[in-house]
């Protein structure tokens, strides 16, 4: 019971407004504008526990704080991993950090992919662009507990071959005989020999039983909308689909209202939603 509760709600910090000092252990450039930071707790304490799909508030000292999904393995206690796309002032500062630099971390916050509920199911993971980052812990979780899940398929789309996130990891996942991995790019020159087309075109080709499947979807909201439509066409009901929403989280505990979406605070009530609940958000323009 405790595990199930943890799976749905995710872990919560004991002192949510107090940043913990972390040190950059290493960084990897993933694409031209995206880096992964591997962080260690500066005071030597063990790392925080988190559930797949949760996020932390990362504080670049003197610049500001932004919500970043945790993209590492829940079972890896060596370092806390965040994949950050350089799109603004704070993310630019975070991407510019180097080994030994310090960063403030608050969290983990938000709901998580309910992996306990998915046991015994076929699992479809649909992601696009940097949307793979919040889903990577779910893939790790499935691989760590492979017997708990039936057929598993990952459909991933990127703008171009050079913008594919975690390419080495995707190749490693492809080597698993019990994991369907499909990758597509929106357009490409002749150096790319893989699939070209939007990510939704991958869904009809998956070998999954829609009656016994769940889907986890994360990416730009346009992609989520069209991805969900394709999944429904594939045979899934809306209650079989989970999505991760993105808004401008600030406090992380549902107090400040920055991430309010209708009656919800995404930082607390999300970011992971069952689509039955999230559907109304997608249908309301300018929300």
């Amino acid at each position, binding site marked *: 019971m405790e595990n199930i509760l943890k799976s749905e709600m995710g872990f919560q910090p004991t002192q949510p407004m107090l940043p913990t000092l972390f040190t950059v252990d290493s960084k990897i450039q993933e694409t031209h504008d995206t880096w992964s930071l591997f962080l260690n707790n500066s005071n030597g304490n063990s790392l925080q526990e988190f559930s797949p799909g949760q996020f932390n508030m990362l504080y670049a000292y003197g610049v500001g704080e932004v919500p970043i999904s945790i993209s590492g393995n829940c079972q890896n206690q060596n370092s806390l991993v965040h994949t950050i796309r350089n799109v603004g002032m704070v993310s630019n500062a975070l991407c510019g950090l180097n080994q030994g630099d310090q960063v403030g971390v608050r969290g983990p916050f938000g709901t998580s992919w309910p992996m306990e509920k998915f046991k015994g199911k076929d699992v479809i993971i649909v992601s696009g662009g940097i949307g793979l980052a919040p889903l990577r812990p779910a893939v790790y979780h499935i691989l760590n507990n492979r017997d708990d899940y039936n057929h598993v398929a990952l459909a991933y789309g990127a703008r171009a071959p050079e913008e594919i996130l975690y390419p080495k990891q995707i190749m490693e996942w492809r080597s698993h005989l019990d994991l369907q991995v499909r990758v*597509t790019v929106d357009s490409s020159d*002749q150096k790319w020999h893989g699939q070209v*087309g939007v990510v939704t075109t991958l869904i009809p080709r998956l070998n999954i039983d829609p009656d016994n499947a769940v889907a986890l979807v994360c990416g730009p909201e346009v992609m989520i909308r069209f991805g969900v439509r394709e999944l429904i066409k594939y045979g899934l009901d809306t209650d079989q689909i989970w999505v991760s929403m993105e808004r401008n989280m600030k406090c992380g505990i549902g107090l400040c209202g920055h991430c309010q979406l209708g009656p919800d605070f995404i930082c607390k009530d999300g970011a992971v939603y069952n689509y039955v609940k999230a559907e109304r958000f997608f249908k309301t323009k300018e929300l």
Partner: protein
Amino acid sequence: MADQITQQLLEHPIFKGMSFSAISDIIRCASEKTFSRSETIFLEGENAQHCYLILRGSVDLSIHTHNRGPITIQSLHGGDVLGWSWLFSPFIWHFDAIAKEKTNTIRLDGQSIRKICQEDSKIGYELMKRFSRVMQERLMATRLQLVDMYGKYS
């Protein structure tokens, strides 16, 4: 051979659910055609004389650009329809199609299919609905590509 083509046509998604009698005329316009890896199926500007129903394999649709060379805009696979320029005047291909691997297709003669549709409005309407569905799906995919949904501001 004819029986095999009939079966393949009836099983292909574009004709799925149609009866043998409904497609009996179409069968007469169909032949098997296999392309080897990297073989050109058609090129932009050539006469669009055929429609290809892909059975197995994959095909890249690309457009040639002066500075970047060929840009692949879509990959097609078994179960997909390749080409509809044979349906509309001036019957000219708008893109290049290259087999990415050994690809088995059923090739339909465009002019004959148009004639069947012209003479039998029932089958003509049914085929138009089915090809329009494919076009609608491709248009949706193209619009998503246009949105540049993975861009910084999406």
